[in-house]
């Protein structure tokens, strides 16, 4: 279920309050997006303790940067996930654990954190998130495997198109086309489910 304008307005209001120094607004933002931010962090770093560390750092950074948030540049959710992804990639790069990440991605099993109760999100928000997850999974599955692979390597591993081409032994032009067409397709399927509609 896509977010209505009401939810978006609430998000922006929360960031504005955080920017003005209201710590409770950050807790509210965590309750709304902690799970999404954790998921991004986990996908990038590949394990629980680091993912938690990234979430803490990401919200601390969001708290510091809240005063500079520009609603015109995108939704609060996109902003938070962008911060989390950057922090997560920093962590992976800093520790040089790309190989370990690949190994754990290959054999990814269920994690204790996956079944942990999430008391933060309310049932309506959980249903909305569950619906989004289903739609996103569907959209990802609609991509050709090479498209999906190229996009995931870029987003979750922080690789450039040239690095992807090198790793896959494919021509750079081919990788560029996969990224572009894959993202176009995702954008079209996911547009009604954006955290906030782009005006």
């Amino acid at each position, binding site marked *: 279920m896509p977010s209505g304008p009401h939810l978006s307005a609430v998000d922006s209001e929360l960031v504005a309050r955080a920017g003005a120094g209201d710590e409770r607004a950050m807790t509210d933002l965590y309750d709304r997006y902690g799970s999404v931010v954790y998921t991004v962090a986990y996908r990038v770093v590949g394990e629980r303790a680091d993912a938690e560390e990234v979430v803490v750092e990401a919200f601390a950074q969001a708290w510091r940067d809240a005063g500079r948030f520009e609603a015109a540049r*995108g939704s609060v959710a996109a902003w938070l996930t962008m911060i989390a992804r950057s922090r997560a990639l920093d962590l992976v790069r800093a520790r040089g654990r790309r190989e370990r990440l690949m190994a754990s991605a290959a054999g990814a099993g269920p994690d204790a954190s996956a079944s942990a109760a999430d008391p*933060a999100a309310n049932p309506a928000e959980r249903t909305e998130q569950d619906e989004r997850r289903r739609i996103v999974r569907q959209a*990802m599955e609609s991509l050709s495997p090479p498209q999906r692979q190229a996009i995931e390597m870029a987003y979750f591993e*922080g690789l*450039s198109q040239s690095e992807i081409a090198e790793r896959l032994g494919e021509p750079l032009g081919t990788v560029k086309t996969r990224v572009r067409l894959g993202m176009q397709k995702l954008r079209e399927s996911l547009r009604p489910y954006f955290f906030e509609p782009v005006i």
Partner: protein
Amino acid sequence: MSTPDDTELRDLAAAYVLGALAPEEARAFEAYLASSPEARREVAEYRETAALLALGGDERRPPPELRARVQAAVAATRERPLRVERRSPWRPIAWVGLAAAVLAAVGLGARTRSLGRELAARDSTIAELERRVDELGQGVFDRDAILAAVLSRDVRLVQLTASGNPDPAIQIFWDTARNTALVNAIRLKPPPTGRTYQLWWIRDGKPVPSVTFDVRPDGAGLVRGVSVPSDGVLSAAAVTEEPSGGSQQPTSPILLVGTLPKS
């Protein structure tokens, strides 16, 4: 209509959002972005798309205690406004103590200690910044005082110099109407421990003790509101190094001296 170049650039939008462009491509795209509202919209759409990507994998739910850790980190990252007034010495300690107690209460073990250390480090950074603001504030105040003293109509300037050494100097801005002076030291070596500088007025040929003063590590010092004897004949001012607290009679050779104009 888009030119072929525009189309080429627009094709980079998705990879740009994914951070997958080569640095030179990213720079070219950003330049294009600045001039194209259409491209900005496209980037915004791809940002929303990218924000959803993580949801495509296995669901991961954060452990319940993460919420408290985020709250603690937010509390510890609070950027407090810099204040010019001096903080009382117990405040940083109490603040760190309080935050540590909150963290301990939510049972964070080793993380508590690491956050506590980080917090203490930040607090000391803030204290250092406040100290620097204090210094800057003091500097501005000093400059205002000098300006006020220099610009007054009744002020005369007396320069004290060290014989054979042009480096250290003392300027005395003598307000003859109020019989007060502002003493400004320049490039004076800080005195050894237990010693201080003392100013002397030479009245009727005899030294009259005046203020003692110290200088900052950079050799600068400023004393405002120094009384100038209003009786007798003042001929000069001098500075010696004396035991802390000052002396009634000079106990060491004159370091700097300057003659006073007749008032």
